[in-house]
């Protein structure tokens, strides 16, 4: 599914964010990338959804070398990847339903299909009764569920999550991880970046540890 080969990322040609990182992730894996703050976890995820390009090395996603992908091909690639962030990145002025529908609207999906898919997804993440609420009226855990619903409504092959439980209390964090596990059980490959090693050991099929941008220790 994903093959990262000697990927490095330097900012301003000096500060290394990642150095010679290599690993493989198979289809259907539930993988955790762990490491302290500044280890390069976020950078690694950003390379995986083409928000940035590696300074050197290669990233192969489903047989496509995305480190050399044309800018015009990035949107299509991103439609097959779901991304979840610590700060949720929801539109405060839109309802829960509209936030989730947003991911389908921009792909040109018909309104009937949007309604059906969003309905199903919200039901699946347990937020159907809150579909008309605005994000600021929801708890942190609920907001993260909306963000997760938005990221999976397109049925992506890969779901990337950057510190998805960083703003949540342990119980809510556990609920979110259980939700990820359920998504993974449906066949979606999941990569979660977190500094919480304990949580990684509880849920992961595979753990990739980053330290000072360098070392990789697949479990």
């Amino acid at each position, binding site marked *: 599914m994903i093959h990262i080969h000697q990927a490095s990322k330097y900012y301003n040609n000096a500060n290394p964010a990642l150095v010679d990182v290599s690993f493989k992730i198979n289809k259907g894996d539930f993988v955790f990338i762990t490491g302290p703050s500044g280890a390069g976890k976020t950078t690694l995820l950003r390379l995986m*959804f*083409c*928000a*940035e390009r590696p300074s050197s090395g290669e990233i192969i996603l489903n047989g496509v070398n995305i480190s050399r992908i044309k*800018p*015009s091909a990035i*949107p*299509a*690639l*991103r*439609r097959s990847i779901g*991304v979840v962030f610590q700060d949720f*990145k929801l*539109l405060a*002025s839109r309802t829960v339903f509209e936030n989730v529908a*947003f*991911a389908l*609207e*921009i*792909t*040109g*999906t*018909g*309104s009937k299909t949007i309604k059906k898919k969003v309905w199903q997804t919200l039901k699946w993440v347990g937020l159907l009764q809150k579909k008309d609420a605005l994000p600021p009226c929801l708890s942190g855990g609920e907001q993260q569920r909306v963000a997760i619903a*938005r990221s999976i409504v*397109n049925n992506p092959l890969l779901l990337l999550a950057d510190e998805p439980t960083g703003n949540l209390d342990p119980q809510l964090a556990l609920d979110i991880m259980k939700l990820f596990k359920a998504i993974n059980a449906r066949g979606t490959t999941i990569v979660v970046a977190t500094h919480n090693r304990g949580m990684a050991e509880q849920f992961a099929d595979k753990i990739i540890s980053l330290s000072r941008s360098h070392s990789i220790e697949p479990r």
Partner: protein
Amino acid sequence: MNPASAIARLRYCIASSLQNLRRNLTLSLITTSTIAVMFTICTSMLLVLLNLSAFMQTWADQLQIIVYFEMQASAKDMQRFEKEIEARPEVEQVRHVSPEEAMRLLKGALEGQDGILYGLPDNPLPASLEIRLHKPYLTNDAVEAFVAGITRTPPVADIEYGQRWLERFIAFFELARLTCLLLGVFLIIFTYCIIANTIRLMVYSRRDEIEIMKLVGAGSLMVKFPFWLEGALQGACGAALALLIVLGVEKLAMNNLATLLNFYLGSGSYVFLDWPMAAAITAAGALLGLAGSFFAVNHLDAHYS
């Protein structure tokens, strides 16, 4: 991309544009009003130029050369001269005006004030010849060439064709055109900047949405198109509003000015915007708005990864 998907995306872009204009209603109204003011000035200048040009054309069409004969010129000499003039290819029509007819015309022109002529012992007006040229020769150069071909020897006393007046008017028209052109260019640049800055503000107010759009796989066109549409809509609405303002002012003013304009410009020579011209002005507004927004969002790909 299948047609249904393309239509769904277009519908989304239109809805997104309208929604954004509604959300930033005050800013949108200020921008549209500013564009309307700019286009009102531009359209008014265009109207002035069109009417000056129409007036010049009307005047040129009615241009005639008047040859005044000497008081003591014999009828035989005048007839000979008239035949020479009639034989020239530029001439469309020649009319002999006797001193008696000239006096009658003068009295008619001085209607109510013709008492000032009573003290005259004799008719002091000379006989004259009114010469009208064919249309292709109604240019300043052609008229001058024609007049140069008339020898100012007896029985001819003087030739009048309003040359100085025509030259002054052409110079004034050229100056007016240049002034309007410079002012027009300035106003277009100003309007362009207003639109571009408004769209930049709208981009800024929607930066979170743009970031998420990019994140969930929206293409460059999908992100930019709603902004292009907003610019074009604001430009078109501003231009259309300007047309309504000009039309309203014209309706109000023409009630009082119609007689005056017809007197000075000649009946029927007053020109107002026709439908194709109004459509062209609205389209120009839309294009200007499109250009402003196009360059305002050009940087989006670089800023939002």
